[in-house]
């Protein structure tokens, strides 16, 4: 299988551990990955007002680049990129006039967009194209004894028509973790918003949410929490420092990208898993389980 891959801005910056582990895992699973040429930022959030077409231009341009690859589908690992690209795609598919206006605005593009590209999140590729059963068989180093809580956040699962799973009770990450041999911990805050970009103008709100979300996971027995969004990862991981200042009794917990545990189970080398980039050090708990 060959995939066209859209990284998005943060996987080339703070989330290198997400990109490198994900790409290594895909190679181990026999998938050939080609990075999209001349990609641009998707805009990170989907514009919610009806007349704001200009903010759909960036994601649609990404879909034009995909057509030029040439390809009819594009895969992304970032939950926010996935949401923005997919919602913009659905928006223009349902509104020919908007699509025509956007094509007019991008008159210098040689390729016209016609709603003819599909967007997949990596989790969909793993579940539907490769299969969790296949992954289970290929996981030569299963995550025996590691208690993992899966945090879905917002943009992977909401709104309903875009989300890749049930918006209230998603399971896809838990199913993946189970196939990797981990002990799955369900917790009620798994779809609770971490505060997202409020981390810029009000980090305290994010620190409070981080405290609530991670306390819930820990109280139910989780030893690590996995995420699929680089903004959730930043908030839940680095804002533990601020959470500790607000709540001195708070016990920190490592936050990992799901791709890091996937890569670990598939025996990818440590230099591709990049545990050194995680803020709360996950190495002690992984060492105690003899996983590294």
């Amino acid at each position, binding site marked *: 299988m060959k995939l066209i891959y859209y990284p*998005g*801005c*943060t996987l080339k*910056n*703070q*989330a290198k551990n997400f990109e490198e582990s994900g790409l290594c895992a895909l190679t181990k699973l026999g998938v050939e990955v080609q990075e999209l040429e001349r990609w641009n*930022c998707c*805009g*990170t*959030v989907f*514009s*919610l*007002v*009806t*007349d*704001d077409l200009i*903010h759909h231009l960036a994601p649609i341009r990404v879909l034009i680049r995909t057509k030029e690859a040439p390809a009819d589908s594009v895969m992304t690992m*970032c939950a*926010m990129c996935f949401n923005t690209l997919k919602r913009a795609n659905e928006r223009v598919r349902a509104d020919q006039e908007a699509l025509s206006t956007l094509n007019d605005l991008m008159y210098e593009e040689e390729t016209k967009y016609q709603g003819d590209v599909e967007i997949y999140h990596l989790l969909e590729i793993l579940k539907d194209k490769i299969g969790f059963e296949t992954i289970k068989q290929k996981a030569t180093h299963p995550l025996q004894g590691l208690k993992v809580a899966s945090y879905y956040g*917002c943009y992977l699962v*909401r*709104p*309903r028509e875009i989300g890749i799973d049930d*918006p*209230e009770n998603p399971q896809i990450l838990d199913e993946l973790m189970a196939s990797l041999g981990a002990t799955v911990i369900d917790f009620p805050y798994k*779809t*609770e*918003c971490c*505060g*997202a*970009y*409020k*981390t*810029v*103008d009000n*980090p305290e*709100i994010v620190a409070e*949410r981080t405290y609530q979300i991670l306390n819930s996971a820990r109280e139910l027995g989780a030893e690590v929490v996995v995420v699929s969004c*680089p*903004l959730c990862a*930043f908030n839940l991981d*680095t804002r533990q420092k601020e959470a500790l200042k607000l709540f001195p009794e708070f016990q920190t917990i490592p936050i990992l990208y799901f791709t890091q545990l996937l890569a670990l189970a598939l025996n990818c080398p440590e230099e591709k898993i990049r545990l050194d980039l995680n803020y709360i050090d996950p190495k002690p708990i992984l060492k105690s389980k003899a996983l590294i």
Partner: protein
Amino acid sequence: MRINISRKNINDSFVAKIQELSGQNLLACYQCGKCSAGCPAVSDMDLLPNQIIRYAQLGLKEELLNSKSIWVCASCMTCNVRCPRGIKIAEVIEAIRQILLRKRKDHIDPERLPQDIRCQVPPIALISSFRKFTS
């Protein structure tokens, strides 16, 4: 708090603008409160999500434009997926933000962000914050 309800406010172009920008029928709301019950941000809000919809129905322009809540909502969509009337509350809140931002009344000034925030947070946070909170 004393609230004056008037036909003038209800028929004001402000209400029509919110409905136009959000694409939502405000009168579909019957005030069940499910949006506010599930909202993770209510502890930091002055007007709860169901109150925002009620205020919007009544055209309480100044109260809405001056509310803290519209800048606390991070469009997590929990209210949208739970509304039994199918109202997209996050879109209504975005419409109110947009009415202010289109008058260049920004909520944050990127140049005044503390140095440590600018250096520390990932691009995804900066871009989404600027998209939501600046014109």
